[in-house]
């Protein structure tokens, strides 16, 4: 009976995820997936034996209140932080389940059980601590610059080796060896995330997302002997999530033309600093919003290029107001979304959706790049590296080979930045000095509000 119910819930998850392939069906897909979870929980509670229902109920209530509170309160700009921390709780839960299973059998556990418990605790704990560091970085509690020290990678490798040695000695030393595994896994999670810079966060969050799934799958392997039905359910769901996170990780890496190893061990930002000195002189033209308004007034086709700066300035609603004004005058407005714009996959899409911008106007890299050729104005809001033409032409640039949005092909490029600071990769953007480039300095939101009032006065 319980196998059958778990099967139904697995079908709900798969079908729900499948419905996420289109914005029209996505919301129902999520509801179906949540029903799948409800079935799994009810089946477990009602068919389990010797359960202390009162205690479980209290724990579930506490979790539901905390989760529900954050889910309703969070700002859309803070979504990366929220997903990071939820990943962490998922990984933590898996590690705890595996730990309690270890306490049941202790040193008498079979070889297979020891291996799966070790992997489950390793991935789960690492996800928990790594996610908290990622949260800290995204929330600005910890420096978003890569934090490195000499010999970091060797140190991490030693930690991992020590940990597996401890796992090997579980049959001899039991719980003490187990404690070492827990502590070292937690430390490893911290050390793997601190050297990663702010702009690489999309990769890290995707990876932690994948880990939270892998941890659940490993916990499934832990449970499969004593609780075969529950074990299989965890394996199925964990694998789905693990695969999903892996795909997103790959997409993010491709969006930066970097390998996963390079993101994790490269600590970009620190290492690139040296090359930033040779940056070419760029002569920029700085315009006021009034002058920019006149350019917009003469334009027919406008492409908006949002970046992390837009999220920081919370400028999504201001963008929509300007775009609506221009559309009412019969102009076409499209949005160009780079895969790694923002701090997590799809970050910009969610922000713009929040501002009521139709998802049909949001175009990805391949769709939008041919559009720049006959575009009158491309406006870049708080993006930098993703529009740097050096990625196409300059083999010495650290971002060479990264797919970029070809904004320079537009008749006029208006770039809004707060200051002339270099982008995350530490390179000066030669785009700013181009013949057809115009800089409008200021906070994205303030700039757009001023632009709108100037447009209205024309």
């Amino acid at each position, binding site marked *: 009976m319980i196998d059958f119910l778990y099967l139904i819930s697995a079908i709900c998850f798969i079908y*729900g*995820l499948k419905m*996420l*392939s*289109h*914005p029209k069906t*996505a919301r129902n897909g999520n509801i179906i997936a*949540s029903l799948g*979870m409800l079935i*799994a929980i009810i089946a*477990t509670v009602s068919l389990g*034996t010797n*359960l*202390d229902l009162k*205690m479980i109920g209290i*724990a*579930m209530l506490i979790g539901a209140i*905390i*989760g*529900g509170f954050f889910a309703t309160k*969070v700002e*859309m700009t803070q979504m990366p932080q*929220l*997903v990071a921390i*939820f990943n962490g709780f*998922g990984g*933590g*839960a898996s590690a*705890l*389940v595996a730990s*309690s299973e270890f*306490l049941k059998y202790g040193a008498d556990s079979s070889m297979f059980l020891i291996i799966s418990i070790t992997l489950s605790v390793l991935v789960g704990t690492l996800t928990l601590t790594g996610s908290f560091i990622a949260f800290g970085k995204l929330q600005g509690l910890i420096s978003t610059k890569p934090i490195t020290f000499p010999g970091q990678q060797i140190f991490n490798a030693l930690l991992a080796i020590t940990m597996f040695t401890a796992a090997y000695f579980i049959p001899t030393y039991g719980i003490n060896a187990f404690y070492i595994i827990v502590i070292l896994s937690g430390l490893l999670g911290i050390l793997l995330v601190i050297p990663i810079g702010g702009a690489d966060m999309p990769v890290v*969050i995707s990876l932690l997302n994948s880990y939270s*799934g892998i*941890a*659940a799958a490993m*916990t499934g*392997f*832990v*449970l499969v002997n004593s*609780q075969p039905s529950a074990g299989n*359910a*965890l*394996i*199925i*769901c964990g*694998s*789905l*999530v*693990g695969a*999903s996170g892996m*795909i997103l990780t790959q997409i993010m890496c491709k969006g930066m033309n970097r390998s996963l190893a390079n993101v994790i061990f490269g600590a970009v930002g620190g290492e690139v600093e040296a090359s930033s000195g040779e940056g070419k002189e760029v002569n920029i033209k700085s315009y006021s919003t009034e002058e920019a308004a006149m350019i917009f007034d003469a334009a027919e086709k406008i492409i908006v290029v949002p970046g992390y700066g837009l999220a920081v300035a919370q400028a999504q609603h201001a963008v929509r107001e300007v775009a609506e004004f221009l559309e009412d005058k019969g102009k076409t407005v499209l949005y160009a979304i780079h895969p790694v714009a923002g701090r*997590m*996959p*799809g970050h910009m*899409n969610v922000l713009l*959706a929040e501002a009521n911008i*139709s998802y049909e106007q*949001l175009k*990805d890299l391949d769709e939008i790049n041919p559009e720049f050729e006959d575009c009158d104005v491309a406006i870049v809001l708080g993006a930098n590296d993703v529009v740097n033409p050096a990625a196409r032409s300059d083999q010495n640039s650290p971002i060479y080979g990264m797919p970029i949005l070809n904004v320079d092909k537009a008749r006029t490029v208006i770039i809004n930045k707060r200051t002339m600071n270099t982008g995350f990769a530490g390179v000066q953007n030669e785009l700013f000095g181009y013949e057809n480039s115009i800089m409008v300095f200021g906070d994205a939101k303030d700039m757009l509000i001023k632009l709108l009032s100037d447009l209205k006065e024309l």
Partner: protein
Amino acid sequence: MDITTITIFILAVFVGFEIITKVPPTLHTPLMSGSNAISGIAIIGAILATTVQGNIGMWLGFIAVIFAMINVVGGFMVTDRMLKMFKRK
């Protein structure tokens, strides 16, 4: 442990790859938060862990239920909140 478990694992990974590659970039954030909620399936392991004899094991299960439930409820709710916003003109 037998070959069935490994079979389930490998097939599930394949199913995951197949369905997730079809999700458009626009929905990548809700995909993450939604799939994240699904990884909260650890909750069923957590519920069963509360029956482990001895206090520590039981309390680990108790905390695991809280963690997993944060993940499940928070994940599905925030995904719904986001997906509600995806509209056409």
